[in-house]
């Protein structure tokens, strides 16, 4: 794997919902195994950007995308097998969405869409992914109980495990901690840092402090424009654009 080439290259990406632009000619790279934090006020196009990266936008009829997104140098718009793309680029949503089934079934849901798995292989996957998402110790004795009985924070980590189980290279987080308590938030962030060894991660967040805590680099979006992207330290200490400074110091947003 050559580290010199970026994992993802976004070029002149524009997203329209009907006639309303959500993202306006945005270009940037995402490096291998970094956590890129994306910050910005509401309606700045952060979530639309994520949905474009695994082509979930194509499920929304009124959305149209121009520009290109390269994953490992290949335009994802030309990928025939969109399901495979979505397995490579996983997604964790803002609201924890545990499916109404057991914890084990939730974790294995994604793999079972692709193939049948044997019991002990499944056990291995369940344990390793739940360990990676820092949930294992809390649920190891009740894997076969309903996932709906878990707390919101636990459910969100279960969703992360479920995403990990299909073996993604890239993980997208859409404000994953917006509804969580501080302890669960800390555990999710801990998990993200551990996952850096093998995954490229993009974290959309409303919480600038979270971006500062976990982001290697941070991008600031405003009204569909990319104002600035740089090392997180730089964004939070010497941003080059005055709007970025105003936002990160809490003057608006």
């Amino acid at each position, binding site marked *: 794997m050559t580290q010199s080439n970026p994992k993802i290259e976004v070029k002149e990406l524009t997203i329209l919902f009907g006639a309303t632009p959500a993202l306006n000619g945005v270009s940037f790279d995402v490096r291998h195994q970094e956590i890129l934090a994306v910050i910005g006020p509401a309606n700045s196009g952060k979530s639309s950007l994520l949905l474009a990266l*695994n082509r*979930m936008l194509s*499920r929304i*009829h009124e959305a149209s995308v121009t520009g290109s997104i390269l994953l490992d140098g290949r335009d994802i718009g030309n990928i025939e097998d969109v*399901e*495979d793309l*979505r*397995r490579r680029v*996983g*997604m964790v*949503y803002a*609201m924890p*969405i545990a*499916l*109404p089934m057991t914890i084990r079934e939730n974790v294995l*849901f*994604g793999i079972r*869409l*692709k193939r049948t798995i044997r019991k002990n292989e499944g056990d291995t996957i369940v344990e390793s992914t739940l360990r990676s998402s820092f949930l294992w110790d809390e649920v190891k004795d009740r894997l076969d109980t309903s996932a*709906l009985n878990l707390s919101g924070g636990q459910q969100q980590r279960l*969703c992360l495990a*479920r*995403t990990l189980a*299909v073996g993604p290279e890239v993980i997208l987080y859409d404000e994953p901690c917006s509804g969580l308590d501080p302890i669960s938030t800390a555990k999710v962030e801990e998990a993200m840092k551990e996952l850096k060894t093998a995954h490229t991660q993009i974290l959309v967040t409303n919480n600038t402090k979270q971006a500062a805590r976990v982001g290697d680099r941070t991008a600031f979006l405003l009204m569909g424009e990319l104002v600035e992207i740089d090392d997180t330290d730089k964004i939070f200490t010497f941003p080059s654009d005055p709007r970025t400074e105003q936002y990160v110091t809490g003057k608006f947003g």
Partner: protein
Amino acid sequence: MRIAPRTTQAIAKGLLLTATASAVGALVFVVGFVLAGGLRHVSWSFLTEPILDMGRAGGIFPAIVGTLLMVLVSVGIAAPLGIASAIYLAEYTREGRLTQTIRFGINCLAGVPSIIFGLFGFILFVNILGLGWSVLSGGLSLAAMILPTVIRTAEEALRSVPTSYRDVAASLGATRWQVVTKSVLPYAIPGILTGVILGIGRSIEETAVVIFTAGSAVQTPTSVFDSARTMAVHFYILAREGISNENAYATAAVLICTILIINTTAYTLMHRLMRGRRAA
């Protein structure tokens, strides 16, 4: 003189209560009247013996078999077709001219009176396709009649499954069809079944359609190409031609019990669906 609002309220409430009591009373009366008049004539032999002397004697076994076969044919056709249509409307397309047209057609179909389905079945299945008066003709006509019920309930059930379940499945690499089968259908099944059961109920209670398309043979049908009568038709003939009041009451009692059981099942399922959704 101005009547005090409190007085008006008391009077209005009284009137409303009276209306409610008479509406509920009328309906309870109908059921009670039939069950009281009929249940005592229902026996095991009544359910298992052939129709004798045009219904003056014997039982209703052929009518029970006829009803069962007719329901099997009608639901066997309407359920797959209706559920597939509902999946298309709810999951596979966005609102556009085509869906509007389809939905308009289905809504209109829901309002078409049964006698029209009878005429239609008579001309197309009995005459043109040459199926004659048969269980098959009857079942096909009934299928057309219950189709809108199946589609509407199924579509509603599909739409009540949270969108996020679909998003999760899709983001984990599910194909469109997998999204439907793995993360939508499992949770919509109680609702879909409700529609199917309501369709069964309508097939059982229908008379006009069946008389025109399946005839009213008193023999037990042995295949779907035989003419047959359903319990509702048998009851109608007994009552209208004054053949036997006793047997008419008994048939009506069996019919009403069947319908009540079927509809109660449907509502229990629907109730469970609602409760399940609240828990989730």
